[in-house]
């Protein structure tokens, strides 16, 4: 440490940058703007993809069985329910829950308009979600024709939650059949569904009478404590026939996200938006650093005349780029947090600041500043020490 203090030099890069506070402020505003643009675009992209697994994340499962024919949550195919019985043979399996999953038409009881709602059917006595509060509500589903409505569903489904809280009897049609709202749950809309409802397996089959007997769309598997989901998944894959696929919980979520990534332009559009932010930032930083180097060219030439190496001066410009990156990133991160909260409030999209995105945007800003600094360094070649005499 003492060696470092002995070797340290005058912080020339910092002093050059701060000599003109107004210019520095403009530079930082530009970098922060580019950073915010990247945060927002990447946040929207990831938020939309995360939204596609809003319900997936809630399941109480370590492993999930699905049909290999399933493409996504909006097109679930069925597989034989007895596969869940087979997996119980594995000593690591603690329990299973068969789940029906399909989109049905919900009629808004106020406007009489219909809209697709994700309907999840399960045995009310089986664990479904990690949230224990649901188990307390599930018993109301034992009565046929009862549903639990997701109060976070979009308002197009009608004022269900407020009516229910007022004590009104809320009845409507689902798939052309009468159902009554027996309670509220809080799940949240996803990419494929603007609203959700839970019902018993029995009610589900009444609403969807064409469901093949013994067929389910999802099989939730819970493992004993200490079991390795990856190893158990591998064992089950070897054990089960080809009419079913085994996923870890994370793999199940990724499967859904990948569908939206690959089948929609969302990823491309928002990544392009982030790239535009990157390019705008590059232009801003380059302009700032180029004019900074140009303004200080006689001083750089003086330093060269004194015996400073070109590499020393390049280092000064590089440090200026690094300082701009760090100083520009901080306000971008803070503003990003605020804007994410605004987006969450306005759209209910799960847009949160996470470490990966924080790091990614910092690396992009750093690359932006260092790349621009590298281009601005070419101007240093014009610094002719002979011209200063």
């Amino acid at each position, binding site marked *: 440490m003492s060696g470092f203090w002995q070797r340290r030099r005058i912080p*020339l890069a910092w002093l050059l940058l701060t000599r003109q506070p107004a210019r520095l402020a403009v530079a930082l505003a530009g970098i922060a703007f580019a950073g915010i643009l990247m945060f927002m675009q990447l946040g929207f992209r990831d938020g939309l993809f995360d939204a596609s697994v809003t319900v997936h994340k809630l399941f109480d499962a370590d492993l999930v069985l699905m049909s290999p024919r399933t493409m996504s949550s909006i097109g679930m195919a069925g597989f034989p329910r007895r596969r869940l019985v087979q997996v119980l043979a594995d000593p690591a399996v603690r329990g299973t829950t068969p789940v029906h999953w399909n989109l049905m038409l919900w009629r808004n009881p106020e406007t009489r308009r219909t809209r697709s709602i994700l309907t999840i059917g399960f045995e009310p006595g089986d664990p479904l979600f990690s949230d224990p509060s649901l188990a307390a509500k599930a018993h109301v589903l034992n009565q046929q024709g009862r549903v639990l409505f997701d109060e976070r569903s979009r308002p197009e489904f009608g004022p269900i939650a407020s009516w229910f809280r007022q004590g009104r009897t809320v009845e409507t049609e689902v798939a052309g059949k009468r159902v009554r709202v027996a309670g509220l749950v809080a799940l949240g809309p996803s990419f494929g569904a603007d609203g959700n409802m839970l019902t018993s397996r029995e009610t589900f089959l009444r609403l969807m009478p064409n469901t093949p007997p013994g067929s389910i769309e999802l099989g939730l598997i819970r493992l004993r404590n200490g079991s390795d989901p990856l190893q158990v998944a591998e064992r089950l894959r070897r054990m089960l026939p080809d009419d079913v696929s085994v996923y870890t919980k994370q793999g199940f979520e990724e499967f859904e996200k990948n569908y939206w990534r690959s089948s929609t332009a969302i990823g491309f559009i928002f990544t392009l938006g982030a790239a535009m932010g990157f390019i705008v930032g590059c232009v801003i930083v380059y302009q700032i650093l180029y004019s900074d180097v140009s303004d200080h060219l006689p001083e750089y030439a003086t330093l060269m005349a*004194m015996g400073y190496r070109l590499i020393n001066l390049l280092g000064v410009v590089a440090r200026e780029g690094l300082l701009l990156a760090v100083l520009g990133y901080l306000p971008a991160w803070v503003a990003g947090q605020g804007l994410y909260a605004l987006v969450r409030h306005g759209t209910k999209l799960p847009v949160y600041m996470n470490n990966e995105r924080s790091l990614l945007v910092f690396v992009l800003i750093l690359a932006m500043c260092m790349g621009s600094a590298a281009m601005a360094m070419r101007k240093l070649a014009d610094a002719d020490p002979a011209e200063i005499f």
Partner: protein
Amino acid sequence: MLSSLLATTPRPVAPEPSVQLRGLNHWYGSGSNRRQVIQGVDLTINPGEVVLLTGPSGCGKTTLLTLVGALRQVMEGSVRVFGLELKGSTRGQRQQLRRSIGMIFQGHNLLRCLSAEQNVQMGADLLPDLGYRARRDLAREWLRAVGLEDHLGKLPHDLSGGQKQRVAIARALAAQPRLLLADEPTAALDSRTGREVVDLLKGLARNQDCAVLMVTHDPRILDIADRVVRMEDGQLIDGGDGERLWGAHRLADTGRESAEG
């Protein structure tokens, strides 16, 4: 104060001349636009020698300084500085050599974002084997030596022209050069300060065997010179290696004449 600074790093007497120019030619442009600015210059400057270079504007003095200072490529002839032949030398060799050469520019060329102390420390930072505190203390010592101990933290735009020039001089000296090249170092100074500065340079030359080549039109300082070299149209007409006997008595006369004129 000055004596303590000059005594800090005594140098052994170098066995070779600090500067040796032989048949030096230099020109700008090419073809019909070619303009010869240095013509067949021969000049030797020994360690500890103070040489003043005079002559009318545009006669090639500054170009000569830049060639000796390893700031330009030598076109024709030989320039040896501390034994290193600059003709054909690499950029790295010239850059390394410049660390041994102190340069005082007519336009100060102080770094605008640095205080007087920091500007001088930029010179001291070139010294190897000196810690941060030692370099900073050295910078303060040199600023004290040029009478600016009360202006350490001032930025260049808060200093007068003469004060800037003194900071530039302190910066050049803080790097403990073996050769000092100065372009009109006293032009912006009043007579008292100018005298102090040239005495400082003279002391540097005497105590540290630092060779000094100074372009000047200031007749008040001619007496410090061991030799005055006069240049016209790119040629040395007085005081070159052919006229080593141009001595101090003649310098005094020249100074008197200039002062009277």
